[in-house]
């Protein structure tokens, strides 16, 4: 009995230790973001409480001087188009692959399968030249096209769901005179809602967090997304950790809210996405 109690205590102890390890670095940044320039200059300890817990001055600075507003706007535009495109492309591909038998079908499937293995970072050297030749470099279209066109994971997610829709529904509609497009639009797509939700969440979070593609393709300051705008804090705010911290918290906050509201979907989505 006592051995069991000790084991239980150790389990909880390890969980609490892990919680501290996860939350402490974030808490330090949150505390720092509420400190004034004076406090920082006086050498306030990282984990010391700020004098005024409601001092949001740094957030104002980060928002205005750090151009976070336009960053959020650019991110929103990219999210909208990239997610919309991914949902359309993914569901159409899944429908075509699962519901039709056609010549070269195996080849098409193999093309998507192999593409899933290619790590995106490696090919940017040459992708850059192609994006550039389309005149999309330094515009919002570059990340939109890349996010839309290279997402194999969401095709997998859609494929799993299309398979679970009984083909008798298609057949019945076809007998009523519906063609393939009507079947896709009226029957398959509406039944894919859970898959759409999964893809929107997973794609939304990964797009929101992506740094590499906007960094590479949109060097203009007007075209900052939240990752690149935050990254640019490094220069002008050099040693102003209170402002940098406020910027970091501003970026983390929407993710935290989304996570708290959509927990179950997020776990499911990322599990599906990874194990595909």
């Amino acid at each position, binding site marked *: 009995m006592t051995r069991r109690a000790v084991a239980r205590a150790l389990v909880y102890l390890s969980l609490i230790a892990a919680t501290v390890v996860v939350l402490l670095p974030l808490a330090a940044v949150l505390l720092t973001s509420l400190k004034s320039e004076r406090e920082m200059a006086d*050498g306030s300890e990282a984990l010391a409480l700020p004098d005024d817990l409601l001092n949001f001055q740094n957030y104002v600075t980060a928002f205005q001087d750090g151009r976070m507003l336009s960053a959020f706007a650019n991110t929103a535009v990219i999210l909208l188009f990239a997610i919309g495109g991914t949902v359309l492309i993914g569901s159409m591909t899944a429908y075509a692959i699962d*519901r039709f038998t056609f010549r070269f079908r195996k080849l098409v499937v193999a093309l998507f399968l192999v593409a899933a293995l*290619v*790590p995106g970072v490696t090919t940017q*050297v040459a992708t850059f030249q192609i994006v550039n030749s389309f005149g999309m470099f330094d515009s919002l279209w570059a990340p939109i096209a890349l996010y839309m066109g290279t997402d194999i994971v969401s095709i997998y997610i859609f494929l799993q769901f299309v398979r679970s829709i009984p083909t008798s529904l298609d057949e019945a509609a076809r007998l009523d005179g519906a063609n393939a497009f009507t079947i896709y639009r009226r029957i398959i797509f509406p039944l894919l809602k859970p898959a759409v939700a999964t893809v929107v969440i997973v794609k939304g979070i990964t797009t929101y967090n992506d740094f590499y593609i906007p960094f590479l393709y949109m060097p203009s300051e007007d075209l900052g997304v939240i990752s690149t705008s935050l990254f640019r*804090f490094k220069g002008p705010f050099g040693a102003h950790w209170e402002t*940098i911290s406020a910027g970091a918290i501003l970026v983390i906050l929407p993710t935290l809210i989304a996570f708290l509201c959509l927990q179950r979907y997020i776990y499911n989505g990322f599990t599906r996405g990874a194990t595909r």
Partner: protein
Amino acid sequence: MTSTTETAAVKAAAGPGAAAPAPRRARLWRGATPWLFLLAPLAFLIVFTYAPIANMVAYSFTDWDGVSPELRYTGAENYAELLTRPDLFEVFWVSGYYLAASVVQIVAALYFATILSFNVRFRNFFKGVLFFPYLINGVAIGFVFLYFFQDGGTLDSVLSLFGVETDRAWLGTPESANTSLAAVSVWRYLGLNFVLFLGAIQSIPGELYEAAELDGANRWHQFRHIIAPGIKPVLSLTVILSISGSLSVFEIPYIMTGGATGTETFVIQTVKLAFQFNKTGLASAAAIVLLLIVLAVTWVQRRLVPDSADDKRMDLA
């Protein structure tokens, strides 16, 4: 996640439709339909995935600088340079830190997934806390940990609470910097592994544990004989993701140190070669080498663990 009966049903349903005799035009139209759906997806796939790979292979045999219209065919010179110039190949050793870190990460993720699969108080809270870092923006993580490791930052403050005074620059020497950065990557990615393992453990039917308990099996036996076999596919997938992830580390070191003090990884080096030093040819060769290694690792895993996640992939075909 799919069953063979469904696949069989689809095949059966497709059969009679294809066999029905139809007028020539209708048949043509029917044959074209799937391609109309695939037009846009395939165009994107070819333009943004396959064309770059093909171009990259071509560039890798030239001395192109990425801008000028002139380029010279140099044969395998880039590859030779890559393999013989020690400073170019050395960056691969940095992956070793991340590889070691992923071992720690997988073991810790397995531990937490196992204990949280049993009845624990505040289970959802702990699950959320462990997973949340995976969702945070990489740049924000970079800044959080720059502050964490800086002089008099979070880490030093915590250590001084325990009476340990250090004047150590955590990101100052290559060993210390790489270890610190690899630790950040554990902090960031542990959650994903953990949630994958937890999902796999929870999909094991509960009766198995009950039966084992009746047979007198303890927790370790349960882990060894019920949980471990149940998560084997996910575990092998995680190992592969970790290896290819360790080889293509980019964000965290690029944001935090920019590759300074010996923290440059292979991808940072490739990006610098291509976009700072305009050595598109050499960078392409480097990218091809990395691509081949990642594909080789994946292939080896497929051979070693044939009954893994790709069973699902197989019935796609």
